[in-house]
């Protein structure tokens, strides 16, 4: 019996058994196409449809949206998504493509949308048939998110939207967008409202999606331009002027600190995927040479690898301790550290990998001599996406300083 299974409730135990049986039969084979490191870098329709097929199958088997009510397409279970996630990762499945839908849009729509909207949107979100993207950042609104200028004007019973969103991952595949915009120019926070808007069906009819090329050379994120897009008032989440509060629900879940557990799969080992973690770092150090012996024998590198191991373990046990109130000084203290720590640890781990590779760190994915297929330079560059997106590390430190330590606001 695994560590986790030992503590299951009867419902979880039965569900875990179901997950195992289903995964043993239905875990997909490795795809013929090369997959990127995460869903945020999906570039081709082949990649997408392979991953969509997997998500749909997992949803139909009850492994996605387990803790949402049946009425909105969920499984109606209690604390079972965690179980499904554990089993999917243990079975080394592919990851889910609808990462923004599952992690951000679903909880936001669920907590703030009208019943009819939830029933319409959530089932196809869970199945991955509708890919979602997030319209938050703008050219003039990054860390200062509340200064977004995209504007919705009421014309009759419609809203007409004009504006410009950037860094919009998956917009080139998305049917829907969660959209933070302004309905009142005279109040910074209270002038914000929150909508879900159809993107794909409006391409060329008020919506333009243009790909941006990342530092890595991959695509995956975009700019999205709204020029007179008309949407119904029924696509508004929560009340007019409550956009900021709704956005907080999104961000809390994006940073892994929300109420609802995000469906998460992954772990498939293949030549084209590569986990940015310390077991791989140690493996790399064993295979790379430095001064005529394995890098793993170098005392300084050993010390630094252990620093990374310790940080990684600390993060894992933070997540465990966050569920033990007697060992928690403030309810949000660990939850709000999660994103900051995970992204900075990943960055430091990848940076150390490049140092271990030495001269060979110059070799990228297209080079047949690159260690680990050139994945570590890619990991390192992509790690800046993590320390910048969803609130930069600097913003995270402000939030922790102000909300947890109670220090004065830096604005």
């Amino acid at each position, binding site marked *: 019996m695994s560590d986790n299974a030992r503590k299951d409730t009867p419902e979880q135990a039965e569900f875990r058994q179901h997950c195992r049986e289903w995964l043993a039969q239905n875990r997909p084979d490795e795809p013929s196409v090369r997959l990127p490191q995460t869903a945020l870098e999906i570039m081709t329709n082949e990649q997408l449809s392979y991953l969509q097929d997997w998500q749909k199958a997992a949803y139909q088997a009850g492994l996605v949206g387990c803790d949402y009510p049946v009425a909105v397409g969920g499984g109606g279970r209690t604390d079972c998504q965690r179980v499904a996630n554990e089993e999917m990762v243990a079975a080394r499945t592919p990851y889910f493509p609808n990462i923004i839908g599952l992690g951000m849009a679903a909880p936001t729509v669920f907590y703030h949308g009208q019943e009819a909207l939830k029933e319409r949107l959530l089932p196809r979100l869970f199945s991955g048939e509708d890919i979602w993207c997030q319209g938050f950042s703008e050219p003039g609104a990054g860390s200062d998110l509340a200064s977004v200028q995209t504007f919705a004007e009421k014309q009759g019973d419609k809203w007409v939207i004009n504006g410009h969103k950037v860094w919009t991952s998956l917009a080139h595949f998305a049917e829907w967008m969660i959209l933070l915009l302004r309905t009142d120019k005279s109040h910074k926070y209270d002038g914000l409202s929150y909508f879900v808007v159809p993107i794909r069906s409006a391409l060329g009819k008020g919506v333009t999606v243009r790909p941006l090329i990342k530092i890595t050379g991959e695509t995956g994120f975009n700019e999205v331009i709204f020029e007179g897009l008309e949407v119904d008032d029924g696509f508004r989440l929560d009340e007019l002027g409550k956009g900021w509060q709704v956005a907080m629900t999104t961000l809390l879940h994006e940073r892994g600190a929300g109420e609802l557990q995000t469906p998460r799969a992954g772990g498939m080992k293949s030549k084209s995927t590569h986990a940015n973690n310390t077991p791989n770092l140690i493996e790399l150090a064993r295979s790379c040479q430095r001064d005529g012996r394995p890098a793993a024998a170098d005392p300084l590198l050993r*010390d630094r690898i252990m620093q990374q191991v310790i940080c990684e373990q*600390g993060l894992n046990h933070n997540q465990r301790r966050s569920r033990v109130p007697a060992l928690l000084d403030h309810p949000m*203290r660990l939850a709000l550290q999660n994103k900051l720590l995970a992204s900075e640890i990943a960055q430091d781990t990848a940076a150390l990998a490049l140092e271990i590779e030495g001269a060979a760190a110059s070799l990228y994915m297209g080079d047949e001599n690159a260690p680990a297929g050139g994945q570590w330079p890619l990991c390192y560059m992509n790690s800046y996406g993590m320390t910048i997106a969803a609130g930069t590390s600097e913003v995270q430190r402000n939030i922790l300083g102000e909300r947890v330590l*109670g220090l004065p606001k830096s604005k």
Partner: protein
Amino acid sequence: MAQPDNFGFGEEAALLKESARKFFAERLPVDQLHALVAADPDPEKMSECGWKPELWQQMVDLGWSVLAVPEAAGGVGMPVVAMAGLAEELGRAAFPCPLLGTLNASYVLVACGAAGEPALAEIAEGRSATLAITNREGSWNAGDADVACEDGVLNGTAWFVQDARKVDRLLVSARSPAGLSLYWVAADAPGVTIRPDAIVDLTRDQAHVVFDQVEAQEVTSNGLAALNAAFPSIWTTLAADIVGAAEWQLQTTVEYVGARKQFDRPLGFFQAVKHPLVDVMVQIDQTKSLVYNAACAIDTEPERALQYAHMAKASASETAAFASGRSVQCHGGIGFTWECFLHLYFKRQKHSQMLWGDAAWHRARLAEILIGEVA
């Protein structure tokens, strides 16, 4: 074996932690602690060993000194995870007493099996103890001792003995014809001379202990195994003390930078001050999670205890240094004075940082486990 999700930190452990916190805060608030241990700033003078034996007696009466002693030997037999909670509160109060030494001796004696029971029974009766197992160079390896034993007579010196002036008994390691043996010696036995060290840390005392023809009772001739078995508990308990002390440093500094104004704003408004304090919090939380994980492993997953305890103490040593440095720096000029209470914690933490192995030492041992020897 699997670890319980809550680290095995149950209701009893939570109650103990809570009552320890209250006890220390009520009996010896920081201003009284300062008056007790920091009355005389003259660095040329021998440290005073300020402590309140009557408060220690109250702790003994509450049963705290026998918590790690198994029930069979007259103790309570609480898990190490509960000791971590108690030690965290001890560190938060920077409380001077021989609790850690007595716990450490208990861990080693428990690892001696039946041979340790007579000595454990003395701890169960309320005796305090400490380890005298370190050589002059300060090696943290169990096999290194400057004391030798022949025909049941000890000669030599044990160094870096913690809280030596506060304890009733010494658990001494010595080279003997049988290997490294452990001996149980009364601190006031004939031939035992406790030579206090002049140390930076005002909340503890330390000594080198000279043994001159001391007749000693052997506990075990396999001291190496007993010490190595107890080290994970010793490191983890000290790491918990560091966590508590670091949390005090953090909260005290947060309070100060929230009140102190410069450039018409509280210092904590400025990100150059705010962000380092967040980093201290993050570092403390990493260590705290690693401490309870290590403690839980000692209790329930012994095959992983060694590596997890190395992680806990390595992380704790970094936390001790980092929280100390930032707390004084963010206080500015007042933090650099004797009158500000911060220095008590600063000094305790710098002591704890090195004690029983610093971060680099623990990481080197951890690498031997996780990477192994590489040709």
